């Protein structure tokens, strides 16, 4: 990313014209407006989550908490379903990502070897699934026939290898592991398993980091649809499905609200709970992302700008 600014530092030595100064002013203003538009809804949600139920239901909250209160968060902490969903999501994300990354790496390394007879055809077989698939129902039937319906494995096995991630990994191996290195290992008497373990895997750390992120966030933590079709048992629901019930379908365990007599206050708490829940559900990814976003960027760029 550093190279992006290189020409600017040279150009700065030349005095900027009036036209350019006006342009830069407009440009900065434009970016500030964009940033505000992005931030506004986020700030509102956070502000509402820290407000009182009365202020929320009266529609008084804009960009700052009104009658500061932690009631929404306290209510969530008692909500067993949310925590159960949280634990399930962690389980699926952890084991699912291990499975995905393992499968992707053991597929990508052989396919990155141009001396492997048939690499083109096999790679194409993977890519083709990106262009055309059997569709929702036939996939569902396979999962059903394997007896995976309503099991934890249904959240893990079908995700397998993302063709897109496979391509990134293949490109990574092609560009970072020179064939000479493999040849040298062979001359030293290493077989392909040994080479894979002792040379390829240690060098693959950056791509493993990228894959872990892509799979964990895009395949496991954020989607709800696989769970919607494959799981029936509430105990197995991941967080996103629990969130869907509460945020979208508006169904909240009535026992949570039972202490409150007043109908309006109850309605207020119901809404307040949603704001707090949105914040709590976004926190894990939001906390991690500033530290990992450069890996995402790297992943996006592997193979694209070479």
């Amino acid at each position: 990313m550093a190279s992006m600014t290189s020409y600017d530092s040279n150009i700065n030595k030349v005095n900027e014209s009036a036209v350019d100064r006006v342009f830069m002013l407009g440009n900065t203003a434009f970016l500030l407006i964009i940033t505000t538009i992005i931030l506004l809804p986020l700030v509102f949600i956070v502000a509402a989550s820290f407000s009182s139920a009365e202020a929320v239901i009266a529609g008084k909250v804009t960009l700052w908490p009104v009658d500061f209160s932690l009631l929404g968060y306290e209510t969530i902490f008692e909500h067993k379903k949310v925590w159960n969903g949280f634990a399930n999501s962690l389980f699926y994300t952890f084991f699912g990502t291990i499975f995905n990354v393992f499968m992707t790496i053991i597929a990508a390394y052989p396919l990155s070897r141009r001396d492997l007879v048939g690499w083109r055809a096999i790679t194409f077989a993977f890519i083709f699934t990106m262009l055309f698939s059997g569709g929702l129902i036939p996939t569902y039937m396979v999962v059903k026939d394997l007896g995976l319906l309503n099991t934890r494995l249904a959240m893990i096995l079908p995700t397998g290898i993302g063709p897109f991630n496979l391509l990134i990994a293949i490109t990574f191996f092609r560009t970072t592991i020179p064939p000479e290195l493999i040849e040298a290992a062979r001359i030293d008497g290493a077989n392909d398993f040994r080479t894979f373990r002792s040379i390829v895997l240690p060098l693959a750390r950056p791509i493993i980091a990228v894959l872990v992120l892509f799979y964990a966030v895009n395949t496991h933590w954020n989607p709800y649809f696989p769970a919607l079709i494959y799981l029936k048992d509430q105990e197995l629901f991941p967080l996103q499905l629990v969130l869907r019930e509460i945020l979208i379908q508006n169904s909240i365990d009535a026992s949570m609200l039972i202490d409150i007599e007043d109908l309006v206050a109850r309605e207020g708490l119901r809404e307040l709970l949603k704001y707090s829940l949105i914040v709590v559900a976004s926190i894990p990814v939001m906390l991690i992302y500033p530290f990992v976003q450069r890996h995402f960027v790297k992943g996006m760029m592997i193979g694209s700008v070479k």
Partner: protein
Amino acid sequence: MLYFRLLLVRPVAVLVQFKKRETMQVEPTSDITPASDALEVRLPHRLRLLNQEERAKLWLRIRRNWQLYVLLFLPLLWLVVFRYAPMYGAQIAFRDYSPAFGIEGSPWVGFANFERFFNSFYFKPVIINTLVLSFYSLIAGFPIPIILALSLNQVKTRLFRNSVQMITYAPHFISTVVIVGMLFQFLHPRVGFTASLANLFGMAPPNAMGDPGAFRHIFVWSGIWQEMGFNAIIFLAVLSTIDPALHEAAVVDGASRLQRIRYIDIPGLMPTAMVLLVLTTGRVLEIAFEKVYLMQSPLNLSVAEVINTYVYKVGLLSPVLDFSYSTAIGLLKGFVGLLLLIAVNHAARRMTGNSVW
């Protein structure tokens, strides 16, 4: 998405070249040789040229790498079971599937399921909704990340630039459920931000989520809000590869920043932009299913029912599950999508000289 250009593309390109070679060989001979010979000509020439010695060499190469094939075994097994078995199962689109008879046992019905969809009451609205929603997303969503990237690329202060980038990426990492939940809360007619704002100015709070006329705008613009920062990444990366000498020369010639954007940056982005446009258009029927489905309500169903949600409802939600019918609609969508990708790619190559393959 650009690695498509290098990667997705390469295997596809191989396929296309392979086809070309095939036809090139057939054409000159087809006039003069009898049909029986044509079969031999059709064989890929790499295989045809192999004599015994070369075949032995090929076998040696395969044997020498046997451990690599062992590594590939599990991924290939997975691929066959979870990706290609469903493609085989998709034949139920042409059968009257019933679980009692299984896939092979159910009777063939030809195109009956497809005809039923064409004649169905839902056919027209579902197709129109899908096309309007996806082309609206495509046209409104395409230029914005480019503009954002061009604008960010001009910023000299590193801290400001990094902060803006960091903030604009952030929504990408929020899950669909939470995004739609936020939309419902933000636009809530009583407790939402728009309601609070309306209260502040003494106006009647709008009910945007309940208004079918607003559905498409909310869907598209919330999508842009979520993804513009992330989609700008690829363009920023391409901008960073533009030769600084071009900019230096332009400055010496007295070009303003705006002129440099117009004549250096934008042309530099064009090939990438074209490839991305082709790929997005090719997937135009694959609207973000998860989001549409969450945003649907009885009020907006007339504009919010798209092919993917309809397939899901017919296949897995309705009281009388119809696997064959649902699969037929899904198959139709997949097939049209594939044709569209090929057509758009062809058009892009004709018009701009840039294409995916």
